[in-house]
């Protein structure tokens, strides 16, 4: 299955889980292989992604057409984000920002 529309991309990414969002975010500034992804995600998100979780998410994102594997560099496979992946990530982040803004506003109004 390959994601095509905006709505379906956001929905698919939501269902793909948090690790998928982290991976797409990491790949947004260029291709990376598994170890580089783990290091980068730990740096910008503070999350230590387990290698089993990483490969599961990579396989899922690739099957959805959101990332693609580049030719192997020795035994390492770099991945890059596709245009559909960038679209889905942008849509997801827009949605998250709207929720975040509403949440912060309501917390402030509630005086909590």
């Amino acid at each position, binding site marked *: 299955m390959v994601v095509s529309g905006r709505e379906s991309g956001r929905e698919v990414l939501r269902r*793909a889980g948090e690790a998928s969002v982290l991976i797409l975010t990491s790949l947004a500034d260029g291709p990376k292989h598994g*170890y580089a992804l*783990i290091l980068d995600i730990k740096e910008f998100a503070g999350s230590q992604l387990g*290698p*089993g*979780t990483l*490969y599961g998410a990579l396989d899922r994102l690739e099957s959805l057409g959101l990332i693609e594997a580049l030719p192997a560099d020795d035994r*390492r496979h770099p991945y890059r984000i596709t245009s559909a992946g960038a679209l889905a990530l942008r849509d997801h982040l827009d949605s998250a920002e709207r929720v975040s803004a509403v949440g912060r506003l309501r917390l402030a109004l509630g005086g909590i």
Partner: protein
Amino acid sequence: MASPSQNRLVEAAVRCYPSAWRDRHGDEAIELGGLLMRDGISGVSVAWSYLRGAARQQLVVRASRRLAATLAALLAGASLVGVPLVLLSSSTPASADSSNEVVASISSHNDAAGQLESFFKLHHYRIGVEEVPSSPSQVGSILAVRPDAATTDDKPVPRMIAGPCAGGAPGCVDAIALPLHYVASAEVLIGRPAKTGESYYGPPDIFAPGELLHCSGVLGEALKQALPTLRGLHLEVVWDIGGGSARRAATPDGQLYVVGGDALSATSISIRVSSRSLANNDNEISRDQRC
């Protein structure tokens, strides 16, 4: 610096993945595990992450073959790591259900998709059914379950229950056990007859019961001895040398050993060869000789 025992633990966990996954990611996964251990992550943690990933892959990629062997490997690996086995245990017969589970069983391979769709609808599960091309023995069997939110490690997942394949061979999956309050959406893939030119989903192990080369005596043989049988099949053979990184059409050296293979479609198979025989791998040999 990781100790040799930690390296072995990680390698054992990676071996729990399906062969197709290992062909693609295996070497890199072991290297990645080594790098993470070098960075201070414990080998147990790395191995457990791979074990969880392997359990999910076995649900998603190839549900219906080597189920018992796979679960045994996962259980052995998990016991090495010293973790709870709730996710991995799978010994309930197809007809049984516990107070915490509902079992969806297939009673007719001819109407497997219809039966499961009716069951899921009746019990208000958000589970879809998709039919995918399969080898004849897997028609009407459950080939995979794709749980939603596959990246979360803490949610329960459907559990496969082994049963007979179409034609009676053992080792397929004809039921799944669902947690009673399973609210996630998921997709169940059911085998259907492949059309001309379609690749099998999976693809299935060609030496498994019910498949073309089961009990053929080819598994473990030197290639020069196995070639007459393979040529007699009149199928396209794709040779897989060195862990899948070098697939090719030309026949390899006859001194190599046949160590595995997949049924790719009705007209093509892949055969894995290696310079190391299976002489010390009783599981692989016994799988082929269980005639």
